């Protein structure tokens, strides 16, 4: 099924498009997003992966492999510190798959799942940055200045992009 559908090429193209859009959005709206001290980080690539799990239904896709590929590119091209997102992105896919087993995915439950996923991504990248001395931010400052605004931005993006992305997935199937 997967091998024969448009999804085979459409999914990776969309994934890397989202990955590059993350960087471009950060650059174009840098005045508004990186308005220190509160920082909003766009995670469209996570949105694309989570939507992949939510809309998977009858057609299993090799999401973990593509999550690792996106993680490698993210680490090498964007951050230069290899070994953070290459593990975080597959973990997000795994966690989402476990949750989807218990909760049937729809718009509202998807919003909650995405909330959990963004929290995982931000918290793990925070811990990793603290370990390698990339940042000296305290835990409470992280919650207020980074996690809160980032969640707000990404949940808003989920609300806006959920139905367009579903349409894209249905067209690709």
């Amino acid at each position, binding site marked *: 099924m997967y091998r024969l559908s448009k999804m085979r090429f459409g999914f990776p193209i969309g994934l*890397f*498009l989202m990955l*590059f*859009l*993350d*960087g*471009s*959005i*950060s*650059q*174009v709206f*840098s*005045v508004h997003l*990186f*308005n*220190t*001290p509160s*920082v909003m*980080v*766009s*995670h469209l690539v996570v949105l694309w992966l989570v939507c992949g799990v939510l809309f998977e239904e009858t057609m299993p896709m090799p999401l973990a492999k593509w999550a690792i590929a996106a993680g490698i*590119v993210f680490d*090498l*091209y*964007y*951050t*230069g*510190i*290899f*070994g*953070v997102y*290459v*593990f975080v992105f597959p973990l997000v896919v795994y966690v989402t798959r476990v949750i989807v087993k218990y909760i049937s995915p729809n718009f509202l439950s998807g919003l909650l799942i995405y909330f959990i996923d963004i929290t995982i991504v*931000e918290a793990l*990248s*925070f811990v*990793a*940055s603290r*370990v*390698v*001395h*990339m*940042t*000296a*931010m305290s835990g409470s400052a992280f919650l207020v200045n*980074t996690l809160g605004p*980032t969640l707000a931005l990404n949940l808003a993006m989920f609300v806006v992009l959920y139905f367009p992305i579903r349409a894209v997935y249905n067209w690709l199937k």
Partner: protein
Amino acid sequence: MQKFSFNRRLVIIIVCLIVSFALMTVSVAIRNKKSTPPLIQQFGNDIVGLADRVVALPANGLRGSVSSISELLNTYQENQQLKKQVSELAQTKVRDQTLAKENKQLKQEIKLNDSLTDYTAITAAVITRTPSSWQNQVVINKGSSAGVVKNMPVMSGSGLVGRVAEVNKTNSKVELITDNNDSANRFAVSITTKSGKTVNGVLSGYKSDTGQITMNNLTTKSKISKGDKVVTSGLGGVTPKGLFVGTVAKSVGDDYGLSTKLYITPATDLSDLNIVTVAVTKQ
């Protein structure tokens, strides 16, 4: 069977954690010590950089057109103000040229070829920015093939914005001075006070809630006042002398009362970068 699978999952998690930490440590060590990343990483980054331009160029172009429309609204007022400044600038520029010429002649006279102030500029466009809250880092479209070398200072508009952190063939990463990690913003700078004394020091960090650069451990007796200009001193490393960093906003005693701590307002808007200049010193 249940117990076995639980153990296996635990083993996988621990192995992943160890591998992750090992990879991070190795890549941080490479980033700090080597002048270029491993060849595979360079090659990969060059390819990804090319692919990224397909997305980044339309996005940056769109941004340019939107901002040009909004700028059109207050063009008239700006034009009148600028006209006044231009007439003053012409005078300064002529004088500057004369002085530069004289300086060159004097240098020839004493057979001094390159001093600390000499540098050539490489102009580069910002392709993209790292979508992460821990690294204030941008990717620019010039790399080692254009002559960019690691640790070179990067300027935008009127002042210093950061330094080159990683160089690939066709693109490189620039760490901004707003980045608060251990090495991003340690620039050797000097301040000329109102009384004519020169104070040397090293930038030590960035205060994100006020948007000011900090400078610790100054043990000078001379009085540094608000508005004094901070420029790079050219001491130690590849930074040329005389790049404008910012102006002193506040001078206070540090926590123990032994030394002075300075707050410096950066010369340029550090969150809005389109075109940057890499300063190349002759070595």
